[in-house]
């Protein structure tokens, strides 16, 4: 341990000091290399090409200033996609957090057969998003889907792939279904860390199970919930990509889509590199803003025990 010097006892936190200035950089290098190569370098490239109109094969490009940005932001289709993305994030996050929490609370109370019960709930998490999309698509298929038959039974002619809102129902259902197990695992382990003594003390104070849950368990779950909130929003914005791709079968038509799917569509299928780069820069800024808001305003209310 020649390179390390123990920090003085005066500082309460753990702190390690290096006697050579280069040593910490050496340790950081692999991680930094990964971040620079796979994150900063592409980001810089995206920012640069967002100011150009470029021919697909890269023979030439024209500087157009902010045109790609104003094009995107003033385009009503882009605005509609942004609005849908916001709506989709809220609905998917709320439903998958809510149902995940409900199932976790109930599973926490199960005593007999808890193992198989939890396994069944968690197993869905092992399904990859494209596979989830495929399974979902079979359920929602216009010709043979049982869900289409179910809606038909109630007099609703479900047309996933044709009708905007019908596709929304399908994509939302599949995305929520896929995410519930993840939330379930975290909530369940969160619930199991609530000390028995606290629960017993609460039992004396309040007979209502709902009140005990609201006043004692929920605040203690807040750090988990906050973590899951961020993860779920990211999931709804980005990881649902494969589900959309499978559901709209490569043909977006009039179906709803998220902003990241539109970036892919315009850039990779439309070969409009400038326009697509501008959209991805906008998306980066939105995510950055969202993260700041979450940590600034929400995290203050979270109490880490």
């Amino acid at each position, binding site marked *: 341990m020649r390179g390390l010097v123990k920090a003085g006892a005066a500082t309460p936190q753990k702190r390690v000091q290096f006697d050579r200035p280069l040593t910490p950089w050496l340790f950081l290098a692999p991680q930094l290399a990964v971040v620079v190569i796979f994150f900063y370098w592409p980001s810089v490239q995206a920012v640069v090409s967002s100011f150009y*109109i470029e*021919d697909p*094969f890269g*023979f030439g490009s024209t500087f157009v200033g902010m045109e790609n940005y104003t094009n995107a932001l003033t385009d009503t289709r882009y605005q509609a996609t942004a609005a849908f993305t916001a709506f989709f994030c809220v609905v998917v996050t709320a439903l998958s957090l809510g149902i995940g929490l409900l199932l976790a609370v109930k599973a926490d109370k199960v005593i007999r057969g808890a193992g198989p019960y939890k396994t069944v709930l968690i197993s869905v998490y092992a399904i990859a998003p494209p596979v989830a999309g495929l399974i979902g698509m079979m359920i929602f298929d216009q010709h043979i889907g049982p869900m289409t038959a179910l809606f038909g039974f109630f007099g609703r002619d479900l*047309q996933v792939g044709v009708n905007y809102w019908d596709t929304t129902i399908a994509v939302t259902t599949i995305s929520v279904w896929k995410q519930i197990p993840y939330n379930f695992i975290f909530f369940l382990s969160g619930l199991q860390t609530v000390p028995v003594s606290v629960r017993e003390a609460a039992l004396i104070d309040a007979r209502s199970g709902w009140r005990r849950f609201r006043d004692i368990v929920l605040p203690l779950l807040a750090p988990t919930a906050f973590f899951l909130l961020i993860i779920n929003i990211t999931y709804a914005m980005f990881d649902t990509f494969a589900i959309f791709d499978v559901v709209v*079968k490569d043909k977006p*038509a*009039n179906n709803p889509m998220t902003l990241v799917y539109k970036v892919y569509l315009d850039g*990779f299928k*439309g070969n409009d590199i400038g326009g697509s780069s501008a959209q991805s820069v906008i998306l980066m800024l939105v995510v950055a803003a969202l993260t700041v808001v979450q940590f600034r305003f929400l995290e203050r209310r979270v109490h880490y025990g």
Partner: protein
Amino acid sequence: MFKTTTLALGSMLTATTAMAATDISWWHGMGGRNGEVINEISQQFNDAQDQCNLTPISRGTYEEALSSGIAAFRSGEQPNILQVFDAGAATIISADGATIAAEDLILDAGEEFDRENFIPGVRGFYADSDGKFIGMPFNSSAPIMYYNTKAFEEAGVEPPKTWEEFEEIAPALKEAGYLPMTASQLTWMMVENFKSRNNQQFATNNNGYDAIEGTEIIVTDENQVMMFEKLKEWADADLFGFYGAGWADNLRPFEEGESAMWIGSSGSFGGLQQSMSDDFSAVFMPYWDSIEGAGTQSFIGGAALFAMAGHPEEENTCTAQFFTFLTSPEVQVYYHKNTGYVPVTEAAYQMAKDEGYYDEQPVAEVGIQQLQLEGGEWTSGYRLGFYPQIRTVMEREFNRIFSDEVEVGEAFEIIETEGNKLLERFGRTASN
């Protein structure tokens, strides 16, 4: 047994090391049976000579093949041959320097080439405005109308030649318990080939062939709007079924014997033989008797092969040899029979005829016959930039039409406006 295997293995090893064949690569966007046939053809080429070794690689769908070809070109890793579909033609042909014109490539390699050997419907689409072949037509198809023979017998009617006839017979099919018609990919069927079958202008600047800049699409004319008003009317009267932009969703009712007619690709023939339980046949895609000069040939669909620039001469020679091999009658007929795509040369068509193939499989001839109908001023093709995106705009508006969100006329106004915006943008990317 062991001895012979070792011997064979040994001779194979010496063979490969001794030859040092030139390797060339071919990226394509075909899957399923069609992808297998590509591998078979490549193997046949490799077996037929020993200077070149061709490796075909599947790159997903047509669109994905084009995108990955472009990305590879930008990083200098492009394949020798890239398959590009009809809608991507303008993107690759406008990129001067990305490809070597097929015609030049073949002539430079000392091979023979004659445009007149190709069937007329194939000549123009992947050529420049002087008629020089930029891409080598490969898997060519035409949209044709398949029909369920049993359904027509039950209804006691004949398959329609024109849309007027369709309107007459469709109620009888409905009466007999069938959904009269479905169609896949309305962009290809009801816009692009509506234009060609009815000899209608699709874009300014000679359908886009003469110049990139200033080219605008023409889709708000009364005939185009009328076609979709009719489709909507038929859909409302349960004479036509629309199941979104997905190809298979619109095909399935036909495969399951629910719909009596389906407009699809002549290249769907191979697949339909396996998936259809009922007997089926096919006729030309209908046209409007009421439009003057209608009934002309359709645009060639499918895809062509492009020789990518930036490869050493010996590789280009191999590519040229492969193009010659590919257009030989034997290979064309083999491909035609195994996939349902039409032969691209007159000689190959004649050979299939002489072999009596069409007596056994009359459906296989419908596509090529439709491509050989009389041509018109507007039937040789279109050259429109960012066209895959324009198709996306159309698909969006068509969904809206059939879910009652927009009137037909208004939808086509939107398509024209957004389409022209994309064309203008393409003009700016290509002109520098």
